[in-house]
């Protein structure tokens, strides 16, 4: 078993290093193939591990070697494959295998083909470290590692200014959150004496609530950054500058869900602090609505999907915050499948449209790209949560849990968001695949993607459809580790009303979206229509002016403050003080050199004056020595 674990963990690393060897050489097809094979190996190993866990139910736990050991601190490279991490491993390796294969086609004409695979595999490795680690420090390695790879992949086309800017933004925003995470880790260490999950969880029970609350808050700040929760969400939409497979793998399926994973992993902590959990759930619900609202009007295909991801992450946090950890994890898994599928489909469309991203400039693509159209439509259906696709089971479970826990505000927000989700998903589908063939205006001749790319996507399609049926198997597996709360509405009538009502609401939203966007009247907006000038539209298209606020008030003021610190403070105050002291000495010398007029007569006068000074000193000291007793007596009398 241990060998399987190591194979699952290290084959992505091998793949990355292998591809890295060829970064400076021209594109080589076999690198993509070998990298995909190695990731697939990792997937196979993970599957064996999953089978093992399903059969025996005992986690595999290994300690590879010591990492840091000093004082009382002991951090090993320890890895654990239990019910939770194996789920994540399956998701990560499966999606990344597909994305690797897909990328062979997608990155076909790119100069940095080899480099791309190196980064992508490195990401998979980091993600595996993140999910498999048995301690918070190891988690942090993966945490930062995925951040690094995300930086490298968002900025993959480094000649594009926006791409590198987005990469840096993503890295720095994640860093802000990582500080919270780091502080959380410090708190864990100084309060429990260990960073191992099992040791720390055991010790949590003995700690007071205040400490636990702080730990929970700081760890969650870390999760907020990685999972792009408000107010650290802006990087995710900008991260869409990266190649589309990257968006599919990192910014939809895996990395952004790391925050959810952290909360799920630390469930024993968050169980003890329901207040923080409630905050997480509320924030999650808010982000779900907030992101969905931005997706309603956006005119960038990838950004719409990114906002949808954000919104779904909100759902996951809502579930995790309410204590329904298994539901959150389940939604994570289901979401990974259909969202990756959606992104890969979007990649196909992008390729076909020569990197055109505005869905208003597409339309009617279903004739040219039938397979992609089918996949994206099904993925959107899954995302909207229509029975019997994956989204229905996971999203419904979240709604139920909110309802059962009597958090009706959260419930209604999530319900409303479900409608919005359906609307913007199908707005996108309708605009891209239905209606007039507006792309002809722009002289683009779309074509379907390579066949093997479509085949590579098919497992995701399959899973997006059938994942719901795995729900009970999954439930039985993970509840060995997570709290096994079943969220059932005991009143059958209410249950049916809710389920059918939700379905109807969602379907209505879909129908509305189709009606509005799938007709021939849709034209490319030119900024003149009444809607485009309304306040609400402007607010939404500008993302509530939050990026503007960050840029104007935080980035700019930081830049200005830095300049001031350098030019004004460092050069004009700190350094000038030092130079001033030197200058005083220097100018003293400069002034007193006039005494050295060279005129012997004057110098003789100075000599006499100096002699007087020295002689006076001699007299004073002589007297002081002579009368030292008396002086001491006087001084002590004065109380010195």
């Amino acid at each position: 078993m241990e060998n399987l674990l190591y194979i699952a963990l290290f084959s992505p690393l091998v793949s990355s290093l292998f591809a890295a060897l060829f970064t400076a050489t021209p594109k080589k097809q076999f690198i993509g193939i070998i990298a995909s094979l190695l990731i697939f190996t990792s997937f196979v190993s993970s599957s064996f591990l999953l089978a093992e866990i399903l059969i025996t139910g005992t986690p595999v736990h290994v300690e590879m070697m010591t990492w840091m050991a000093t004082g009382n601190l002991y951090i090993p490279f320890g890895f654990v494959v239990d019910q939770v991490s194996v789920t994540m491993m399956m998701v990560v390796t499966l999606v990344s295998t597909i994305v690797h294969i897909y990328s062979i086609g997608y990155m076909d004409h790119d100069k940095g083909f080899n480099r791309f695979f190196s980064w992508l595999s490195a990401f998979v490795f980091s993600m595996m470290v993140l999910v498999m680690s048995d301690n918070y420090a190891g988690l942090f390695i993966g945490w930062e590692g995925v951040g690094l790879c995300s930086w490298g992949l968002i900025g993959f086309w480094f000649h594009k200014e926006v791409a590198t800017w987005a990469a840096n933004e993503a890295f720095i925003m994640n860093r802000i959150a990582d500080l919270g995470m780091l502080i959380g880790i410090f708190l864990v260490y100084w309060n429990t004496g260990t960073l191992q999950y099992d040791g720390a969880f055991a010790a949590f029970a003995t700690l007071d609530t205040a400490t636990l609350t702080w730990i929970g808050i700081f760890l969650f700040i870390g999760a907020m950054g990685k999972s792009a929760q408000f107010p650290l969400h802006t990087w995710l939409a900008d991260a869409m500058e990266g190649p589309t497979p990257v968006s599919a793998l990192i910014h939809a399926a895996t990395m952004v869900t790391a925050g959810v994973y952290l909360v799920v992993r630390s469930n024993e902590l968050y169980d003890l602090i329901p207040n923080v959990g409630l905050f997480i759930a509320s924030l999650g619900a808010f982000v779900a609505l907030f992101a969905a609202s931005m997706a309603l009007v956006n005119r960038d295909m990838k950004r719409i999907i990114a906002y949808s991801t954000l919104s779904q992450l909100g759902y996951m946090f809502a579930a995790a915050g309410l204590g329904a950890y298994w539901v959150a994890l389940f939604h994570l898994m289901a979401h990974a499948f259909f969202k990756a599928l959606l992104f890969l489909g979007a990649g196909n469309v992008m390729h076909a449209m020569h990197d055109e991203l505005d869905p208003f400039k597409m339309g009617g693509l279903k004739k040219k790209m039938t397979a992609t159209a089918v996949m994206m439509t099904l993925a959107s259906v899954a995302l909207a949560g229509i029975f019997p696709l994956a989204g229905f089971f996971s999203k419904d479970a979240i709604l139920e849990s909110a309802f059962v826990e009597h958090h009706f505000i959260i419930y209604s927000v999530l319900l409303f968001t479900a409608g919005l989700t359906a609307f913007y998903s199908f707005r996108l589908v309708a605009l891209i695949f239905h209606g007039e063939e507006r792309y002809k205006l722009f002289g683009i001749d779309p074509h379907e993607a390579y066949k093997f790319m479509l085949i590579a996507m098919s497992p995701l399609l399959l899973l997006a459809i059938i994942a719901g049926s795995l729900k009970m198997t999954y439930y039985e597996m993970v509840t060995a580790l997570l709290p096994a709360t079943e969220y059932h509405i005991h009143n059958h009538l209410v249950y049916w009303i809710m389920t059918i009502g939700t379905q109807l609401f969602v379907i209505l939203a879909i129908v509305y979206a189709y009606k509005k966007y799938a007709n021939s009247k849709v034209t490319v907006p030119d900024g003149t229509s009444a809607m485009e000038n309304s306040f609400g539209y402007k607010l939404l298209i500008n993302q509530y002016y939050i990026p503007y606020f960050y840029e104007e008030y935080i980035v700019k003021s930081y830049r200005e403050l830095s300049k001031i610190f350098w030019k004004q403070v460092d050069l004009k105050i700190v350094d000038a003080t030092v130079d001033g002291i030197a200058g005083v000495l220097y100018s003293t010398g400069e002034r007193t050199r006039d005494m050295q007029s060279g005129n012997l007569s004057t110098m003789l006068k100075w000599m006499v004056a100096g002699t007087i000074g020295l002689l006076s000193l001699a007299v004073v000291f002589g007297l002081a020595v002579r009368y030292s007793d008396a002086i001491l007596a006087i001084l002590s009398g004065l109380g010195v």
Partner: protein
Amino acid sequence: MEIGLNHYLVLSTILFAIGLVGVMRRKNLLLLFFATEILLNAVNIAFAAISHYYGDLTGQMFAFFVIAIAASELAVGLGLLIVWFKRHGTIDLDTMTSMRG
């Protein structure tokens, strides 16, 4: 009216002061040398007087050495003075400003 040590010390003080005034106001190097001789002699008186009133010959010995030093100083000083005068044609102090800082 007994003449005591203090009288001699006061005399010495006065002579020393005169010598210093000379040192400070003379411009002619030769006359400056004169002033230094006065300084030395003023101190010599003090030495001799102290020696006398204390019945200790050390003071006289000191005065003796002071005279020796004064003589040698004079020899070298005058030699330098002559060299200087040969080169510059003047021994005015105000012209000697090559030590300007």
